[in-house]
């Protein structure tokens, strides 16, 4: 089970990286952490493994370093670093490569061959120099882009819907009448009331009011 789906994203404006709100130029885009820039939001939505690999090699003696994208099974000549290398074999889990078998030579002595975990770095001691090398499978990331300036209208609508449900269920028009009149020299008060819904609840309130009135008089 993957722990996370992550894309490192840089926004370019006029060819220059933009400093984002958090003060960095690289944003780590994850499933629940989209990136919003000038009203446009980028979401991590899918990914696709490729059969190619990103190889970074460094000649520690000269300090020359290079990053290349290479397919498996092809011999790469790296003139500046004075070496040749290639990917002999790979172990995959589905389409995700777990381990890679590397072939590496500086044309002095026997070539080195070894297994390396995906995205791990190896130090290769050769007669001419020491090399550092890391190999990572190439992935494409699928981003979903939305421009949705109306999102707050939608959220407000959701809130109003819940409020509306509350009003519809728990509030009602209630009418209470008190008719004061004289009958045989006595003052009589007649109470009537109506509610257009939740009649059971209204009955309780109404009875409570009338009882309270009766107590006051007594």
């Amino acid at each position, binding site marked *: *089970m*993957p722990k996370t789906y992550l894309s490192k994203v840089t926004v370019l404006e006029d060819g220059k990286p933009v400093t984002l709100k958090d003060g960095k130029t690289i944003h780590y885009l994850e*499933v*629940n952490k*989209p990136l919003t820039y000038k009203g446009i939001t980028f979401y991590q939505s899918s990914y696709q493994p490729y059969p190619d690999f990103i190889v970074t090699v460094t000649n520690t003696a000269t300090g020359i370093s290079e990053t290349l994208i290479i397919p498996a099974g092809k011999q790469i000549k790296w003139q500046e670093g004075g070496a040749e290398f290639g990917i002999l074999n790979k172990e995959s889990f589905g389409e995700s490569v777990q381990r890679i078998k590397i072939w590496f030579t500086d044309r002095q002595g026997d070539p080195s061959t070894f297994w390396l975990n995906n995205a791990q770095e190896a130090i290769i001691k050769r007669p001419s120099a020491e090399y550092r090398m890391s190999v990572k499978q190439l992935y494409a990331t699928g981003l979903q882009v939305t421009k949705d300036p109306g999102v707050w209208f*939608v959220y407000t609508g959701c809130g109003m819907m819940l409020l509306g449900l509350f009003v519809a*269920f728990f509030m009602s028009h209630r009418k209470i009448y008190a008719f004061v009149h004289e009958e045989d020299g006595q003052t009589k008060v007649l109470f009537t009331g109506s509610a257009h819904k939740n009649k059971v609840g209204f009955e309780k309130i109404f009875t409570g009011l009338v009882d309270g009135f009766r107590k006051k008089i007594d």
Partner: protein
Amino acid sequence: MNSSQLFGITTLCYLLSSVFYIGLLVFKNKKVGTIGLALAIIGVLVQTVALGLRWQESYALGIGHAPLTNMYESLVFFSWCTTLFYIFLEYKYKARVVGAFVMPFTVAAMAYASFAKGISQQISPLIPALQSNWLIAHVITCFIGYGAFAVAGGLGMMYLIKKSAVNKGKEQDSLAASLPELRIIDDLIHKTIVFGFMWLSAGIITGAIWANEAWGTYWSWDPKETWSIITWFVYASTLHARFTRGWSGSRIAWLAIIGFISVFFTYFGVNFLLSGLHSYGAS
């Protein structure tokens, strides 16, 4: 003492509580009902501690998430919500015998969570889609709704049993006589559905907002979403029929049962039969 032992005690409490409530229904002895309530309360307290402990255990494992992420945890949470809602209902409306129709649901949920094949009790790391604070808001709102609808379904059955006894002129028959009056059950069904409906609406809305925050789309018509909107419509129609057409009694009781079947399918059927964005619920 770990959380699964406490969940075991909870199951036992709920089981005994159901037995006592059914005893109340049969023997009409008030003391039996009080014991049933006491057991339900003990069960829910133990379960609360167990949920907190499981949460803590997940942090101890270095995973650290609320216990709301797979079938086992959701079943446990469902029984917790249902029992809590029922205790509240009993406290507020004093309709004690309802427990005989509700507590068996919670036992079933706990027992199924603990003993069914293919339900993992392990605490596992969160998949990326669930790594969000919306998880808690979304699951809690939905499950309070589900809990209320389970109670409404139980009340619906109770109404129909009482009604058939009344129709046959057997009101004094031992079982039906201990049930509350039809008018009271009807009112309780309505109140419970209203309560559940508001929470289900809130649950669907929090889900839509979360989907928008995570994927940039409110609604993807995955099976769980589709079925939750079907459930929402069933209850919306029920309430609408009552408000505008004056439906009550047996028809509403049937709708409460149909609604619960729909909830059941949204919860289980979708997880096990249809795959989609909510598929993690099945394991």
